[in-house]
């Protein structure tokens, strides 16, 4: 008894026009929208109730958080999105080595993002600004922390596709390309969340 062949795993379904995996990843992203939506809702509720924001200090968010670093990280993620697209495009154009180059760049940029965040967090902790300090830091650490965990997840998936996973290129390149595309959808979503996080936390 071997694994059963599931229809429409690779080819698009004749009516919906998409393969199963793409549908699945979009549904997953829908749930992620609700997850981050709930956290943004929490941010709104807590912030609008606070007499002033950030609470317990005269400083502005942009003075507490490092805007240049945040801007740099935003650029890093945006760049990683284009490298991800180019990785997928390389697959579509049948070029595995190009794919590996662009996917490698994506993973590298993701790591850079995390390194910058590490320095940001370390600096905060050095000044005794832990999540318990006040709700500004609580929100900051939870939102960027959860986002950071999603970056880690993306790094794991992308690294897999770059290494062991890329073996599938030899037996079923179309299936592999779909996987890269789906991983890309996830990765762009992570970028998308940061696009809202950055101004909400750092600038406003």
């Amino acid at each position, binding site marked *: 008894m071997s694994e*059963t062949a599931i*229809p429409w795993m690779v080819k698009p*379904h004749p009516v919906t026009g998409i393969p199963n995996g793409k549908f699945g990843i979009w549904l997953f992203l829908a749930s992620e929208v609700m997850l981050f*939506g709930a956290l943004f809702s*929490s941010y709104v509720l807590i912030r609008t109730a606070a007499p002033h924001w950030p609470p317990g200090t005269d400083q502005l968010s942009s003075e507490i958080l490092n805007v240049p670093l945040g801007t740099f990280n935003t650029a890093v993620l945006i760049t990683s999105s284009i490298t991800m697209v180019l990785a997928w495009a390389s697959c579509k154009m049948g070029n595995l080595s190009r794919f590996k180059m662009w996917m490698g760049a994506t993973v590298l940029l993701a790591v850079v993002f995390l390194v910058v965040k590490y320095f940001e967090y370390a600096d905060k902790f050095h000044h005794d600004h832990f999540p318990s300090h006040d709700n500004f830091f609580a929100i900051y650490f*939870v939102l960027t922390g959860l986002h950071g965990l999603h970056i880690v997840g993306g790094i794991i998936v992308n690294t897999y596709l770059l290494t062991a996973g890329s073996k599938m290129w030899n037996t079923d390149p179309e299936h592999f390309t779909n996987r890269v595309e789906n991983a890309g959808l996830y990765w762009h979503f992570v970028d998308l969340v940061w696009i809202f996080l950055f101004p909400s936390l750092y600038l406003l």
Partner: protein
Amino acid sequence: MSVEHHSHGNGHGHSQEGHGHHELSFWRKYVFSVDHKVIGIQYGVTALVFLFFGFTLMMLMRWQLAYPGQPLPVIGKLLGETAMPGGVMAPEFYNQLGAMHGTIMVFLGVVPLAVGGFGNFVVPLQIGAPDMAFPRLNMASYWVFLPGCILMILSFLAPGGAAQSGWTSYPPLSDIAPTGQTLWLLSMVLIITSSLLGSINFIVTIVQLRAKGLSYWRLPFFVHAQLVTAFLLLLAFPPLEAASLLQLMDRVAGTSFFLPSGLVISGEQLKVAGGGNPLLWQHLFWFLAHPEVYVLILPAMGIVAEVIANNTRKPIWGYRLLVYSVVFLGFMSFVVWAHHMFMTGMGTTMSTFFQTTTMIISIPSVVILTCFIMSLYGGNIRFTAPMLFATAFLPMFAIGGLTGLPLGLTASDIYLHDTFYVIGHFHYVVAPGTLFALFAGVYYWYPKATGKRMNEALGKVHFWLSFVCMQFIFMPMFFQGMAGLSRRLYDPTVYAHGRGVQALNVVISLGAWGLGLSQIPFIVNFFMSLKSGVRVAENPWNATTLEWAAPSPPGHGNFLTEPVVYREPYEYSVPGKATDYSPQFQAEG
């Protein structure tokens, strides 16, 4: 059991070399299986175990409620001096039992059985698919779920005991509760994750993997119900996952997401930053928990439809109306949640908004119930064990639904909120409601899953005993609630109005213990039939839906030949036909 199947035009995506007939190891076949039937049974059996465990917690609570402050003979000593000092239930333990009973019944019992169990087993069969769209994801779902369950149960051993702030875990109390609450939160994160992965699987499967000829309007109602349920789980659970994360941060990292400034506990000001809002938790919790109750009822309605059609030998009355209603119900379930929060100081405008949506949502429920009742009219009814349960569902759901109305109206809710009336209301819907439908499902699909019939006589005994006990348990609760008796109250007799209805507590408790005993015929039947039940072929109920085309039990890949659907799902007693049923999968003639 080797299976032939045509590929549906896809490339052979699996890296498996063709369909070799190499045997899987015991572990791959029965433990880490990717077969939806195995996973469905895993979920189903796990859920049934937790249903009985969660019920046992309630049977313990009922002792304290019936005989407050009295030592519990025998069992009292077994539970240890912390939980039951001198055999008398400690208030903290009572609270643990309450919180864990609710949590376990909802998240470890009913939903895993209804969705993980029946959904997984039946849906791919009913749509003519070889398996779920993502079999390995399906396996992962179960193996994330089970550790969540184990962690939840282990929390009883934590210092200070298990979660004890209600299944609703309201802060500030839950923020400062003992360690068990942290374990509750971690378990919920695992269980929610499992549920999200599962819901993705269900939606993709139902949309993409239907057999040839199976348009949406030919789907069994059970599948429509599961599809809507999957969307509820997909979109409503994440806010609770977010909230759980925030509460974990409050408890473990000292944040104040839910802790307001200046909170004083036991005479001391809490040393936190403050600035948080306990109502934030309530919003995020109920944003899930209201759709969750529709997750509890929708699969049950699906099962009732299948069993009623089959046992009345008639098509379901108002099939299209049912489908529109269940979709509308699912949608509306997202906009009613704050009717659980009428007493939190919301202004009249928002209260009115939620009251209005709540009244509106009762309409599709009534439509669905009416369609089911109409389905009985003029039927050639066979009162088999599943049919008894499915028929009883109807008046029970009616009582549960009707008693929800005074709760959904803000004015009456002021009085009834957090009383035993609420407990009576939701238990009528979930216990003789959903649970009965789930029992119907077990009796109905057991032959498909095992190849054996369950014993009819034992099934009828199980039904009648359970039905009678349910009334003794939950009907008196309405009167207790109307007398003002609060829920989650360790000793009702501290209040005069509690003492006034204390006699009912004895009746209820006897009913509860009776209900426990009434499950014995079911448990005996379940295992006995596995060993020595009457063997059945593919379609012992003479049913019309696709699952009855597969062998009993189905092999890997489910169907011996690729199923094709030729007609609507409930073509029973079609005039001019030789038999009183025309299966979906049978070609003309």
